[in-house]
């Protein structure tokens, strides 16, 4: 099956356009036509021409940006559709499907009837479809792209052998225009000139070399739903139903060695309204008894209205979670308890607000550590520091003082201090490769000042831009 206009057909299915239509893609700063419909082709446009030229040829051209990712998804949907004809369906390139219909044609009343059915359904769906059928994958591809569904292979051009442009041109220069010509030529000189690819493709098309077809399996879907004969409304009932869905879901996750990271529980009410409860877990998880209590808070907040008649649970985000040996000692706590706690806290204030400190490689005090979401990081040690650092850091607060050495007395936060002992200076230069507004005042000379009043403060002096500031407090 070849869909020659798959990208434009996809867009035109949702918004039909009468007249010329094209998809544009920006390549090397130029908008070029990516795909176009039949009407546009009749106007003399072709793929790869620049959009400006196309507009000059055809002023009423309607265009739309190309989305290759959506095209790939559309092709995957078509692949799923094609399994109605046979179970072995693979994807061929960006716009084709390969079906191994061996043993399946009689169900449709023969090959011709099946091909007719495919054409009819594709036409009804608004898709341009070319079919080719053959004893080998190569022969079917050649017929779909370069001829009728049952044209004799020998009469097709050499381009039908899935060869690259340069090889096809080279073969045509030698006068080998059709597959039949190529087959009649001695093999050794051909291999010497064009490499093994040409004859491999020829043999694949003629069935002398086998070519496997890779049918793609369905990606596992982690979703389940349950419909009730009578609407329910009690929290206990909803939790019981959730449990009944969660157990098979977790079994399925275990089968695929995966763990849910984000779960979505959708409750549909009798009046067709639906409410969603999102659960973001602090660690991938697949134990139903552990996940269930985490839903309690969300379920309690739901407005059941006249009752809930369907619930649906889906693991929206899944991460691989291989089976692990449970430790035999050392760890005193049950593993995962902290993650459960983080998840419960996360349902209230957001999982990203549970954070962890990670060491960072910088001599700038504010950048000597980084803050990461605890759910998506692991604890790291390595907090060595040559010089003592304050326990508390705050944005620099100016104190009125001057000179290169710490002031004898100063006022900070409306309290007078007398310097008892000052240790320093420790000169820290800004990181010139990072632009930081706070460090615009240039290098800093840090002093640890122990005041007679007791408090041990971290002061700095900026010699390039004279001034004294307090930035931290020691233990």
């Amino acid at each position, binding site marked *: 099956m070849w869909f020659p206009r798959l990208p434009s057909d996809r867009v035109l299915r949702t918004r039909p356009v009468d007249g010329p239509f094209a998809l544009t893609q920006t390549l090397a700063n130029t908008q070029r036509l990516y795909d176009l419909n039949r009407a546009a082709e009749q106007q003399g446009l072709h793929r790869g021409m620049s959009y400006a030229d196309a507009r000059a040829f055809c002023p009423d051209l309607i265009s739309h940006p190309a989305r290759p990712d959506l095209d790939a998804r559309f092709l995957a949907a078509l692949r799923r559709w094609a399994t109605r004809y046979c179970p072995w369906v693979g994807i061929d390139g960006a716009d084709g499907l390969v079906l191994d219909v061996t043993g399946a044609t009689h169900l449709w009343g023969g090959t011709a009837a099946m091909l007719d059915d495919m054409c009819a359904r594709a036409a009804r769906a608004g898709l341009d479809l070319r079919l080719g059928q053959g004893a080998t994958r190569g022969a079917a591809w050649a017929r779909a792209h370069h001829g009728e569904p049952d044209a004799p292979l020998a009469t097709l051009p050499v381009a039908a052998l899935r060869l690259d442009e340069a090889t096809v041109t080279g073969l045509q220069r030698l006068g080998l225009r059709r597959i039949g010509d190529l087959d009649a030529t001695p093999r050794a000189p051909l291999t010497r000139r064009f490499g093994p690819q040409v004859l491999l493709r020829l043999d694949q098309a003629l069935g002398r070399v086998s070519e496997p077809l890779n049918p793609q399996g369905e990606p596992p879907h982690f979703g389940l739903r349950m419909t009730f004969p009578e609407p329910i409304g009690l929290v206990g009932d909803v939790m019981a139903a959730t449990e009944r869905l969660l157990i098979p879901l977790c079994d399925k996750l275990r089968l695929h060695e995966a763990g849910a990271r984000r779960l979505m529980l959708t409750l549909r009410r009798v009046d067709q309204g639906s409410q969603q409860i999102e659960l973001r877990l602090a660690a991938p998880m697949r134990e139903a008894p552990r996940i269930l209590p985490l839903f309690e808070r969300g379920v309690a907040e739901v407005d059941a209205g006249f009752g809930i008649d369907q619930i649906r649970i889906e693991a929206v985000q899944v991460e691989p979670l291989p089976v692990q040996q449970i430790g035999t000692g050392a760890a*005193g*706590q049950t593993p995962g*308890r*902290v993650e*459960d*706690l*983080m998840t*419960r*806290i996360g349902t*209230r*204030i957001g999982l990203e*607000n*549970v*954070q*962890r*400190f990670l*060491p960072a490689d910088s001599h700038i*005090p504010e950048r*000597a*550590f980084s*803050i990461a979401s*605890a759910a998506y990081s692991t*604890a*790291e*040690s390595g*907090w*060595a*520091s040559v010089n*003592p*650092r*304050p*326990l*508390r*850091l*705050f*944005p620099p607060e100016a104190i009125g003082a001057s000179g290169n050495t710490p002031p004898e007395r100063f006022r900070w936060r409306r309290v007078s201090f007398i310097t*008892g*002992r000052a*240790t320093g200076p420790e000169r820290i230069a800004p990181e010139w490769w990072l632009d930081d507004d706070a460090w615009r005042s240039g290098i800093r000379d840090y002093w*640890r000042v*122990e*005041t*007679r*009043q*007791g*408090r*041990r403060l971290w002061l700095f002096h900026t010699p390039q831009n004279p001034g004294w500031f307090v930035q*931290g*407090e*020691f*233990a």
Partner: protein
Amino acid sequence: MWIDPALSGCFPLRQTRVHEVCGPGAAAFCALAAASGTGPVLWVVESHRTERLNPVGLAPLLPPERVLMVRTGSQTDSLAVAEEALKDGAAPFVAIEISAPLDLREGRRLQLAARAGGTTGLCLIPEGMGSNAAETRWRAAPLFDPTGAMDSTLMRWEIIKNKEGTIRAWHVRWTPETGGLHVVSPVAERPGSQDAPG
């Protein structure tokens, strides 16, 4: 961590209770109280505070990899998170930075949660904003040490409310190299000191 027996009965903090600490040395007190136990430490802070805990400075007192910071939007959220964590018991020590006084109901709920979960809680409160439900209340302040080394950690810890004992004060020093918390006699009373009586 070695703790001077002179502090026994009061420090380490009594478990399954919620305590309070105020004063300029509250963060250091909290870090040392957390370091006396094991397991993760939950440190609940309101996100609008500009005064941040510096993990590099925290490292000599308490390994920063044990700390989980929880940033909340308001004090109500802080208290809810703290109650949840105290009741859960997965983190044996929960520190809560508080900006407005707790009423008796809130303080009592925290106490009940700590008892249910078998955990210890410590509220870092501004001066004079204590709750009556607290088990003990401490005032911690750094002290100037005229004879000490350059990285002195001399502090005055004063217990100003105690439900199961008397109130007292100690001068303590933390030695990160040996991991010991020593009680020292007040400076003025040391033999050889200029101000020593007699």
